[in-house]
């Protein structure tokens, strides 16, 4: 089969490389969403831990 002309082949080559880029970007976006959830939950746990520590400190200062 004869080689495709550059303008025709260029579209296919660009499509292949864009698919690769898209695949990586989708994966990174999913991982970023997961890490954002972990970050949010970590913030919530830090608030809970601080909330528990505060009454203890208040109790110590009163006593």
């Amino acid at each position, binding site marked *: *089969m004869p*080689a*495709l*002309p*550059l303008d*025709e*082949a*260029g579209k*296919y*080559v660009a*499509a*292949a*490389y864009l*698919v*690769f880029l898209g*695949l*990586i970007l989708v*994966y990174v976006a999913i*991982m970023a969403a*997961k*890490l954002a959830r*972990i970050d949010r*939950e*970590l913030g919530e*746990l830090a608030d*809970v*831990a601080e909330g*528990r520590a505060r009454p203890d400190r208040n109790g110590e200062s009163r006593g």
Partner: protein
Amino acid sequence: MKVPSLRANAIAATLVLLAGFALVFFYAPLDTDQGFIQKIFYLHVPLAICALAGFILGGLLAIAHLRTGDPRWDARSYVAIHLSIIFGVGVLITGSIWAHASWGKWWVWDEPTLVSFLIVFLLYATYYPLRYAIEDRDRQGRYASVFAITAGAFVPLNFIAVRMAESLVHPRVFATANGGLPGSMLLTFLVCLAGMALLWLVLVRFELAAKSASASLSRLRRALDGEPEIPAQGSRIAPGVPSSATSVS
């Protein structure tokens, strides 16, 4: 041996991959038979090699899991196979794009290389339902490891069988006839392969780090709730990852 940090690994992968793609478009000569469309192979073939090597590595890590009973090896095996399946999707799509440009068809069923890769891909696609079907964590890990070892052994056998088969149309990148690739094309290909392997490693380490952070968060939540310590759980099919599992050796 000191393992480079994830950040250093990511920077190296980006630089090598960008250098490889620069070589593809500004250094490697046009193929006399296929012309510009052959540039797809510098992406498609490294993706395929990394996916297949990742499947085999997943099997080797599964052997370590069965030998030691340590769930960290199961987690590494799971992540290696998971990333290889993602790379496999890339292989199938970029291969189809090349096939349509070169043969005028998106898929050819009588070509052993294509069909064998599809069989391997579909085989590994059953890895998730296998894990999902088993609720007990220990049994899930053991069964998944047996699957990973069996399927991992199938990959090189399949590859050898395809190489021995009489191929009609699929080109060979590492052909032994007619001298194989010229030096400039071979250099470009090897740089792309190195970049793709580094990218695979970065994504594996990234995924393991995220799973480790998630498991640590669950332990912290249980500690704050005053619940007893239980092993890292992860999601229902993904194994839990203790914090020391983030390096892939």
